[in-house]
């Protein structure tokens, strides 16, 4: 098992839990219980029932005929955009809210950038009647008014992070500080495969339903469980982790992770961590991150709010380092054009995050028989304003 987390919480040299002592008991409690709870039959029943009846799983695996024709291979879309709340994020929040209940927690906190994870968290808190506090950068609150309104309608308090650059990384800092201040009553629902151990592994496990379903669906459609390629966009990397999870040890299935180049890898306005990142510590995890020579964390940039995280999850740093995954960086303009193309060819408007994955096709050379599964991680409704402005629609 080369690509799963080891006993100390590391993927190769990445991962761990680099947190102040005040957080040690919180993480220790999670670490001692999460596998036991996840593997519990009753928990699995609750989780699977909610995924089916509330989230709408299994999501379809759709053969994208016109895209396949254009790029001369067999392209399948894993339709996570059809999940309740519009993206894969809810697979994780459903799992974590059930886990929090079993740990006896009375209060939930979460960070959010564009608001997708915030909405997914507020949703499950409403479902389970648990108090919910969402930290969001003050700058993002201004940019993402509809999602802020959604969270409020769902009963969550939205707290502005006014520190640092007032965006996702600062919202994450504030959520961690809240957890330090409220160690016993509160569970922190991290939205991606980032943060201190056991979060990267726990979130990956809750997202692994994506690849579990693909195996069965592909067997039915192509008479094999295994595609030739998996393709996902990656910020922190939770949708990618879900897509890869059940294929990691099968190296015949190739992995391509598409990150955001912003205005260009060398433009100074980018989120291309695989190129620009160096090993360091961010949010309690040792991983690749964008930083100055002095080790100060750099604010990333992408037109897509879900991809502008200055690091990647430690699993993905390990996949890059071990060459299990190939990374590509896609610019804003390529991503926007791909978003338009997918809409016109398949009748599905993708989130701009998801559009990054499709922009990779014109740079890749597949064989006509290659089966390529793309994680259609989210729908584009939330990005309409950006699309309107960009294309003068």
């Amino acid at each position, binding site marked *: 098992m080369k690509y799963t987390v080891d006993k100390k919480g590391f993927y190769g040299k990445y991962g761990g839990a680099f947190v102040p002592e005040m957080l040690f008991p*919180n993480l220790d409690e999670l670490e001692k219980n999460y596998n036991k709870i996840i593997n519990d039959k009753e928990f699995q029943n609750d989780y699977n029932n909610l995924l089916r009846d509330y989230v709408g799983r299994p999501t379809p695996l759709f053969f994208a005929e016109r895209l396949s024709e254009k790029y001369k291979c067999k392209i399948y879309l894993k339709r996570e955009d059809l999940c309740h709340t519009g993206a894969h994020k809810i697979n994780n929040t459903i799992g974590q809210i059930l886990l929090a209940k079993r740990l006896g927690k009375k209060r939930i906190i979460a960070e959010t950038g564009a608001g997708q994870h915030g909405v997914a968290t507020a949703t499950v808190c409403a479902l389970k009647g648990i108090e919910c506090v969402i930290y969001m950068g003050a700058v993002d609150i201004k940019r993402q008014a509809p999602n802020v309104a959604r969270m409020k309608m769902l009963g969550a308090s939205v707290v502005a992070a006014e520190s640092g650059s007032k965006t996702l990384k600062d919202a994450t800092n504030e959520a961690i500080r809240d957890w330090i201040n409220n*160690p016993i009553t509160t569970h922190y629902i991290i939205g991606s495969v980032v943060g201190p151990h056991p979060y990267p592994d726990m979130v990956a496990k809750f997202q692994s339903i994506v690849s579990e379903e693909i195996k069965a669906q592909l067997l039915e459609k192509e008479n094999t469980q295994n595609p030739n390629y998996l393709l996902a966009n990656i910020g922190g990397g939770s949708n990618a982790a879900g897509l890869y999870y059940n294929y990691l040890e099968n190296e015949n299935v190739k992995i391509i992770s598409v990150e955001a180049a912003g205005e260009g890898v060398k433009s100074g306005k980018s989120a291309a961590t695989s190129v620009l990142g160096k090993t360091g*510590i961010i949010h309690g995890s040792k991983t690749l991150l964008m930083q100055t020579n002095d080790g100060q964390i750099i604010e990333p940039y992408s037109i897509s709010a879900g991809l502008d995280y200055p690091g990647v999850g430690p699993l993905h740093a390990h996949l890059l380092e071990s060459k299990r995954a190939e990374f590509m960086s896609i610019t804003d303009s390529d991503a926007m054009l791909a978003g338009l193309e997918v809409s016109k060819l398949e009748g599905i408007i993708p989130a701009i995050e998801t559009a990054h994955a499709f922009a990779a096709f014109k740079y890749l050379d597949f064989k006509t028989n290659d089966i390529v599964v793309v994680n259609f991680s989210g729908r584009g409704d939330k990005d309409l304003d950006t699309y309107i402005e960009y294309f003068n629609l």
Partner: protein
Amino acid sequence: MNRIDNTLNKEGKLLSIYFTAGHPNLNDTVDIILKLQESGVDMIEIGLPFSDPLADGPTIQDSSTVAIKNGMNTNVLFEQLNGIRNRVSIPLIIMGYFNPILQFGVEEFCKKCNQVGIDGLIIPDLPIDYYEENYKSIFKKYKIYNMFLIAPQTSDERIKKIDSISDGFIYMVSSSSITGSKESFSSKQLEYFERINKMNLKTPRITGFGVGNKDTFNAAVNYSKGAIIGSAFIKNLESNGLKSIERFIKNIRI
């Protein structure tokens, strides 16, 4: 034995001050240290600023943001501290998050500390086990003490382990909270102080977080060898400047 032990062996209760290097102005570092020594402070924690200080409240975070903007970084700090030992005899500790130290190189960092006369480090986000496995021998080689934190939720078992591997002192975090001064301690906090006191640890304890005035200082040192003031000192520095340092310290010590 290093300067930290000598100071801990002194009679009476110790006052330690934390400030962020490079704040309010880039080149205030040495002046602040000299004024603190003149004012009778027993120990100093020099904060190496970090962009994302997870355990800190708004005061220290803001001072760190200003310091980084002013141009403070690891190289600049060591340059400023060069020669400090000709003028300062009290223990000097650098407190900073792990990433800037990791980027500088842990061994290189310890070597520099040794050269300029830093006695110890407090790195809140460097876990004990990881330190023991990877860096302990380096710290020993350069005679740099590494001080660990304990907090109200830390288990007795873990406190005993920390006690057994600690150099100098244990940094006792006064509450389950981030840094920032409070008016007084709650009865729950005092219970925790009492509980730790009864454990008869071999390592002296210095209390920090939430200590900011004479009352909280006196309450904290009832249960420990000394206390650290950070946010309250930084706020005072911001409002009243370096000339107010002596009066600030006197008001605590009265």
